[in-house]
């Protein structure tokens, strides 16, 4: 759950995880599984674990991935690193994280437009109310829809590149 009670993912959240529920139910994708990755403090390790995720997905011949973060703050660096590593392997990637008005991106890159905000509080701030901003089924559905569009667009541009 990390920093931020309103987004923290309890043990019950993992047991009933809305992302797994939504992705496993969709017959239009071949759902491969869930890669769980931590958030090391050390900078070398931060880059390494993100890279390992990307290589693993590549080896599974994954076409598209959704990455979600538990908590926010320091872990945002790990999140963007991993997203970039996945993207640079040619895998379509969509992110889901708490942004609101409080956790906006310090640095933007080509992947930031593909991160969906799970904030639900009117203030856009950490409310300290457990689960107020946590990822729900609607977020999961949005992410899956967005990923399908992204996979299609990425495939088209890859085909164009091949033809030119």
């Amino acid at each position, binding site marked *: 759950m990390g920093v931020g009670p309103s987004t923290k993912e309890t043990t019950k959240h993992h047991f009933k995880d809305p992302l797994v529920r939504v992705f496993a139910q969709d017959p239009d994708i071949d759902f491969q599984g869930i890669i769980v990755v931590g958030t090391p403090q050390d900078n070398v390790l931060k880059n390494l674990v993100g890279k390992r995720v990307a290589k693993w997905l590549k080896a599974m011949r994954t076409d598209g991935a959704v990455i979600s973060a538990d908590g926010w703050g320091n872990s945002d660096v790990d999140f963007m690193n991993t997203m970039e590593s996945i993207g640079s392997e040619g895998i379509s990637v969509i992110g889901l994280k708490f942004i609101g008005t409080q956790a906006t991106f310090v640095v933007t890159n080509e992947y930031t437009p593909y991160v969906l905000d799970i904030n639900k509080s009117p203030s856009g701030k950490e409310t300290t109310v457990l689960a107020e901003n*946590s990822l729900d089924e609607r977020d999961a559905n949005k992410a899956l829809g967005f990923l399908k569009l992204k996979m299609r667009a990425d495939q088209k541009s890859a085909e164009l590149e091949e033809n030119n």
Partner: protein
Amino acid sequence: MPNETLKIKEFIIDHVQIGDSYQLKDHQLVIPKKPQEVLPADFQSVEIKVLPPNQLDVPTNAIMDVIPISTKVLGNIGEGITHTLTGTCVLLTGADQQGRQIHDFGSSDGILKDQIMLDRDGTPGTNDYIIMFNVIVKSTSKMDRKSMTEIFAFADAYIQPIRKILKVTNGLEADYTHEYVNEVHPGKPKVAIVKQVSGQGAMYDNLLFAKEPSGMEDGISIIDLNNFPVLLTPNEYRDGAIRAMV
């Protein structure tokens, strides 16, 4: 992978009360007022309360976790049979004796009804009985990784006798049976989920592959794995392969 079938049998609890010992029958759960184990040296006290539905107008310390009560009856995590209780769950809270909250960055302490959104995937339902397990540590406690793990493990040891009874409860008495398989859809785009979880130490930790669903015993810490990625099947995930300790 397609042959791995997971059956989660759901037992609905419609009443929870404090009694002398653990009992589970006829949709009713009885739990003891005090933990049966000796308190660790760092602990000042442990307070256990049952909150009936709609009676959440009580003070709470920082909410450390919401824990479903499940047990493995047959097979390993991700396959076989699991029994789970619905209608109740454990709310783990904590502070030190001077009121210093255990999760000090944005703590959820206050009046419980104002500090929790019910009916989310990670929280109790409106009609659930909440078992509030509140740990007060001594002000000399370092609140480091070891002492945090001790709190989570102590709460888990309190839950284990419920799991033991649930394990030998006749599966035919289950209210619902949910059956899951890791389906494959050849020819469709291959999609994976990446879950970034906390593994920075102290109260930011997650355990994987404990013996019991959503349990702790034999669980492997993501910190001890150097935060390296681990692949879980959908069924493993659904069967409580992750225990949050954050």
